[in-house]
């Protein structure tokens, strides 16, 4: 295409320097936020003013900050659950299902120890450790189903993880509603409340799950940049065929990444239902919380699978979604502002994928001279 004597050409990028990728990610978020202001305009509000309120509530208000951190922990774990399979080129959108299983398993530990009827005697550290282990095991196994089917027969993991979400959703309903074993004795269609000893301990005002996030960040960073296994996962993600020739076993990789991803999603389920002050039960509306895990897809894509970069993104989105809820209440907007924000950020990110793949070359067009050659 030529315009005003300049030629515009699209060229596929071979490589993308890290700072440019970061720049595009920031631009994608800014573009998404600008796009999202339509919702505020439609409600007759000044978007700049609203964003100011959202940010100051989420990051400056002492109550808001606590909610933001809690949401941040959840989103960071959900993002890691997405990132590990994504590094192997596989799509895990089964975080909601995996986190339900994780939550159920940790409540199951308490149930088996008599926590529902108040007969629990075990000490707190033992209970917490068992709950965490159970959450990771159950969710890891549940996640492994998708990896197993993918690795063994090449079954489409997107559809499988989505179907598993619904299966887990109804399994939770079975456990906590209609007289299910975990049902609240008052019969309100929600789970029994965790006794004092089974609630996640707080350190410095934040639940221990915050430390788990940081530990995982270091572990994943080491896995992907220092270890042979991490290299194998990434090589498989870049080119499954080439990886196979290099002796990498696709079956092993698929099962491994989905088990790890699932286990981490299980921790996010543990966090939301057993570590957030004021909750400590599987609420009737657990489906709303589970689906927020899809934010993890966006965080993972925007940070290009980098475990360290994921954290600031998760913090930003955590704050935005909490602040969005706050603005929703204050402006009497409809339910689900945080879901709408998720949708807009996602579509903006997809549009910006273009810049990750292509660059626009602009060159001044040389005038062709028709000169007769004569001597």
């Amino acid at each position, binding site marked *: 295409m030529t315009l005003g004597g300049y030629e515009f050409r699209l060229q*596929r990028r071979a490589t993308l320097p890290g700072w440019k990728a970061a720049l595009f990610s920031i631009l994608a978020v800014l573009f998404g936020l600008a796009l999202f202001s339509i*919702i505020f305009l439609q409600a007759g509000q000044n978007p700049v003013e609203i964003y100011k309120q959202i940010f100051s509530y989420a990051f400056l208000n002492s109550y808001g900050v606590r909610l933001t951190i809690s949401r941040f922990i959840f989103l960071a774990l959900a993002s890691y659950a997405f990132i590990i399979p994504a590094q192997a080129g596989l*799509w895990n*959108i089964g975080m909601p299902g995996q986190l339900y299983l994780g939550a159920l398993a940790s409540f199951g530990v308490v149930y088996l120890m008599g926590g529902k009827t108040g007969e629990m005697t075990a000490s707190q550290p033992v209970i917490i450790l068992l709950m965490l282990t159970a959450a990771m095991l159950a969710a890891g196994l549940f996640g492994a189903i998708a990896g197993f*089917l993918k690795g063994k*027969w*090449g*079954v*489409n993991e*997107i*559809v*499988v993880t*989505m*179907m*598993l*979400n*619904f*299966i887990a959703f*109804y*399994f939770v*309903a*079975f456990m906590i*509603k*209609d007289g*299910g074993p975990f049902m609240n004795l008052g019969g309100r269609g929600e789970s029994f409340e965790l006794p004092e000893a089974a609630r996640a301990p707080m350190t410095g005002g934040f639940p221990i799950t915050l430390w788990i996030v940081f530990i995982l960040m270091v572990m994943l960073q080491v896995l992907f940049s220092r270890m042979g296994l991490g290299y194998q996962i990434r090589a498989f993600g870049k080119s499954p065929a080439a990886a196979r020739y290099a002796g990498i076993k696709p079956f092993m990789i698929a099962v491994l990444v989905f088990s790890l991803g699932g286990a981490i999603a299980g921790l996010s389920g543990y966090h939301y239902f057993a570590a957030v002050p004021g909750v400590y039960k599987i609420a009737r509306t657990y*489906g*709303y919380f589970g*689906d927020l895990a*899809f934010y993890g*897809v*966006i965080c993972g*894509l925007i940070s290009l699978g980098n475990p360290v970069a994921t954290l600031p993104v998760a913090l930003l989105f955590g704050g935005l979604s909490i602040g969005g809820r706050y603005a929703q209440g204050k402006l009497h907007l*409809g*339910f*689900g*502002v945080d*879901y*709408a*924000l*998720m*949708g*807009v950020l*996602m*579509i903006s*990110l*997809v*549009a910006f*994928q*273009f810049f990750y*793949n*292509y660059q626009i070359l602009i060159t001044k067009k040389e005038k062709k001279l028709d000169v007769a050659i004569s001597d």
Partner: protein
Amino acid sequence: MLPFLIRSLEAAMIFTFAGLGELVDQRSGILNVGLEGIMLFGATLGFIAAKTTGNYFIGFMVGLGIGAALGLLHGFFSISLGVDQVVSGMGIWIFGFGMTTYIGNPYTGPLGLDKLPTILGVSPFFYLAVIMVVLVWFVLSKTGLGLQIRSVGERPSVAQVSGISVTRIRYMSVIFGGMMSGFAGAVYALYYNPVWNYNFLMGWGFISLALVFFSMWNPYILFGGAVLFGLLWQLALNPQMFFPGLASRYIWRMVPFIMTILVLVLISSKWFRSRWGATKPEALGQPYHKE
């Protein structure tokens, strides 16, 4: 028993509409995994339009329109911008899920219009679905246009040199696919389940996607699969008809999703795959760059 069968066929017609659109889409080489998002949009906006105007026709038109727009968007991302098709489809799904949750919430509840008439007890849309199955089969396998669509999905570079515009055919296909999904969503919300609720589509878009893989890109097999899933779905909702008192209703609700996974496993078996591999559009999922 009869209402059970009718309900099953009516569920099947929705899978069929969405699946047929996706089938044409994939035949042209474009994979759209975001059809759940398009269906959610068609369902929600169609529902709101019909509820506020009291006019069914407007509701269906809105469903078709938003479907076409989202199909176009997917085309723009994946054909013109060269974005990975799975990323774009996932984007459209999360966009649809997030936005419709917000947009639809104030309209939570029943539609409140007189139910649409039936022909011999079955929704007229069922007959339309059957006609569409035959029509899509006819166009794909008996007409020049169908040949163009298929060639673009198999060998885009060869199609291009023989004078077919790959971009044009693919755009046409994704817009058609989007319209069908949007319409399927509208039929779901305006006829099958006219009560808006959070995420009320229950993954039917993903099930339709699975049906396309199952169909080996053949409209007739797709329709057969849709009827099978319609029956299963009704069984899961009314287990007391066949298995009174056996297991909780929530356990039965899991059945269609488990079956979807089993069907996917089945079509990934060696026997199926040798046939499947032969019919799969060669260029499915690959962006085409004009040389």
